[in-house]
């Protein structure tokens, strides 16, 4: 599918495009999903080392207590919460729960806000 030059105007200033709130929830759902996929090898490494023996377990505890790990966990905590909440919103809409425009906009706001709330809660509790 080749893109041919046309005279049609191009408007790609994302700071001026008015995105529906559902689109924001959806973008963040994809971004958080990608982020979580990238953390899979790290999770496996933690699992691997922590199960090798008491020394490995202590080593992982040390890693997780450090600041970089705690910062990462705040981000991952948000990613997990937003991805799961947005995902459940989609699952419910699949079975026609909350599929009306009004309900969908409300649930999108709820998901985004709850995600931010989890981010703050984890940051507050962890840092």
């Amino acid at each position, binding site marked *: *599918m080749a893109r041919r030059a046309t005279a049609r105007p191009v408007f790609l200033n994302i700071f001026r495009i008015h995105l529906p709130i559902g689109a924001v929830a959806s973008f963040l759902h*994809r971004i958080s*999903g*990608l982020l*979580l*996929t990238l953390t*899979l*090898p790290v999770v*496996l490494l933690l*699992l*691997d080392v*922590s*199960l090798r*023996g*008491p020394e*490995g*377990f*202590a080593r992982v505890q040390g890693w997780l207590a450090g600041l970089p790990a705690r910062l990462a966990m705040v981000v991952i905590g948000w990613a*997990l919460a937003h991805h*799961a909440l947005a*995902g*459940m919103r989609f*699952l419910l809409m*699949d079975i026609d729960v909350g599929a009306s425009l009004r309900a969908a906009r409300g649930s999108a706001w709820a998901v985004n806000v709850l995600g931010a709330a989890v981010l703050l809660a984890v940051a507050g509790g962890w840092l």
Partner: protein
Amino acid sequence: MSRAGQGLRAWLWQRASAVYLVLFVLLQLGYFLAGEPGSYAEWHRWVAHPVVSLAFAVALLAVLVHAWIGVRNILMDYVRPVAMRLLGLGLAAGALVACGAWGARILVLAGLR
């Protein structure tokens, strides 16, 4: 399977793996938030437990399936040049298979220790 059927199959697998993962993550998070594990012995006893070990194995499979479908969706939506898309799909598939093999090794070795 018809072309239309393929999309439906992916959609079902994505939903099924998602439901299992929400339950698994909630349970495992509960375990951690309850202050566990206090020591290597407790941690090992948990992961090597026959039922928990199985739950972990299924969770790993669910993550691989779910992540594959998700990454494939992203690549199909945003990467138009065919060669780039195939490269992306190949890398993702390879990485996920490697993670699966690694995870299986971790669980088997933990069970044997």
